[in-house]
């Protein structure tokens, strides 16, 4: 019940913000929603199962390119194109996850990176489909289903992205609170013990990677509909690094932290980018300092300062455990 009220409250805030904010802020927030969703999807892997991926751009790119191709070559409504892009990303992710989970730790991270670069190479080389390094342009997000025009407008699309983010967040929370989520947290804490307790950890890891890629694919697909183009840059490895920075900066294992991390990243990029080309240098310094002084990221700092979540409960799972017991 508690969760339902929070869900409704979040939707109301979203609706209100679309009405009162100036147009440029709505555009900015749309991008925050998309990148936040992307970072949150990675947090499922990194923060809850300790599956550190250096290749999450693959998820973004798979969603982006499949959605772009659908929008360019067919007349299907945008939500259907997004759904198909998500399904496609998830199916490919099964294969990626199957291979990557043969390894653990650094080897796992390297395999994810390899897959990321593999998709980058495909996107650049397969020019007849992807238009190579020029990318796909001229994408339009026209009608919603049944001729509904809402998604074509700026505010309508913002609302749509916001709803996607909020729905994904609550779905992830339910996932973490479920028996499946408990096993994931167990894998993060001590994978060997989970095996000794009679569970095949690989199935759980593959499952969470697939969910994570599917949400990352949704973010990529939304980005294409937002920016109206898809370029190989979306699949290039710096994207994987950036999203990992967003997760760690915001606070991994908190779901909302990475969304804040994404917003913070964008804020630094856009605001500092106006004054200096060396904004990345400043961001890098902030990142280093935050890793040393705020191991739980911005979210951890905020909850410590604000006494958020009943005083001591700093991370989501502690909160969840608290709610369960009381």
């Amino acid at each position, binding site marked *: 019940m508690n969760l339902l009220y929070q869900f409704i409250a979040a939707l109301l805030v979203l609706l209100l913000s679309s009405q009162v904010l100036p147009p440029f802020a709505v555009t900015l927030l749309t991008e925050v929603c998309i990148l936040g969703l992307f970072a949150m999807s990675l947090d499922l892997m990194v923060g809850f199962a300790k599956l550190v991926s250096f290749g999450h751009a693959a998820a973004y790119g798979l969603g982006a390119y499949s959605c772009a191709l659908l929008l360019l070559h067919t007349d299907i409504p945008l939500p259907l194109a997004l759904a198909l892009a998500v399904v496609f990303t998830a199916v490919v992710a099964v294969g990626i996850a199957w291979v990557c989970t043969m390894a653990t730790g650094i080897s796992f991270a390297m395999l994810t990176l390899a897959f990321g670069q593999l998709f980058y190479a495909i996107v650049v080389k397969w020019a007849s489909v992807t238009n190579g390094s020029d990318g796909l342009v001229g994408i339009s997000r026209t009608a919603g289903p049944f001729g509904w025009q809402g998604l074509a407008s700026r505010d309508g699309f913002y609302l749509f992205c916001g709803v996607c983010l909020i729905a994904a967040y609550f779905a992830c929370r339910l996932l973490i609170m479920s028996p499946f989520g408990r096993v994931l947290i167990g894998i993060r804490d001590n994978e060997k013990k989970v095996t000794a307790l009679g*569970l095949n950890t690989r199935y759980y890891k593959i499952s969470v990677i697939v969910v994570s890629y599917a949400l990352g694919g949704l973010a990529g697909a939304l980005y294409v509909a937002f920016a109206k183009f898809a370029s190989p840059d979306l699949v290039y490895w710096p994207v994987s690094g950036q999203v990992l920075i967003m997760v760690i900066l915001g606070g991994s294992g908190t779901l909302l932290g990475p969304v804040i991390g994404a917003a913070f990243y964008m804020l630094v990029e856009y605001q500092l980018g106006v004054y200096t080309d060396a904004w990345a240098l400043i961001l890098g310094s902030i990142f280093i300092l935050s890793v040393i002084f705020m191991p739980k990221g911005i979210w951890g700092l905020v909850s410590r300062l604000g006494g958020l979540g009943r005083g001591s409960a700093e991370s989501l799972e502690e909160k969840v455990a608290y709610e369960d017991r009381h």
Partner: protein
Amino acid sequence: MKTAIECIAVSRNFGALAALKDVSFKVMEGEVRALIGPNGAGKTTLFNVINGTIKLSSGKVRHRGDDLTGLRGEHICQKGISRTFQLTSLFPQMTSFENVSLAAQAKLSGRWFPIGGRKVLAEAGRRANEALERLSLKHIADTPASELSHGDQRLLEVAMAVAQRPDVLMLDEPTQGLSIDETHEIIGRLRALLKEQSLTVVLVEHDMDVVFELADRIAVLHRGYLIADGTVGEVRGNALVQEAYLGGVD
């Protein structure tokens, strides 16, 4: 009495080293069976062969007539054989209750439910509370496992195995690294547990006090061979065993 675990001519080689040579023995239902032997005797290898952590080179392991040979650890656990580790293995960031609850959940049919699963979690919680009660650990239920004393950590790991309601409980040196007082405490709690509930236990242990206090029967290994197998009294009087322990260094 029925046989719970049966090892038939089990051998295991590590390269040129034969850690187990042709070991055959049975663990009966409801008995506490200790595996002892000097360092390097192969007792931990045998222990790990039974629970599937180590693959055997030849021979067979059966559980109630069911062939376990070649099965992976997690499958063997699902068949009702729960183990603890020599070096305490817990989920350090979770509370004691969450540790035990996850262990119990691993044996429930809805253990993987991705959405909802409230009933599964409630049942796991119920079993967890029961297991914590059995080992008198209720007072530390909300303490993170990493903050427990070493002795409580050892007991918590036993509670996790107990919460799985195993058919065979396998304890790998439950008093490893504990002071004499703590060891007595653990012996007391384990005895209380065994008194309350008939459990089949396979116990690897260095400390002879623990073995003589808890075990019904003892199997003695020496350099990979099973050299004695019998009641506490029989093993105590066995010349070969005395040789292995006292004059075994040649």
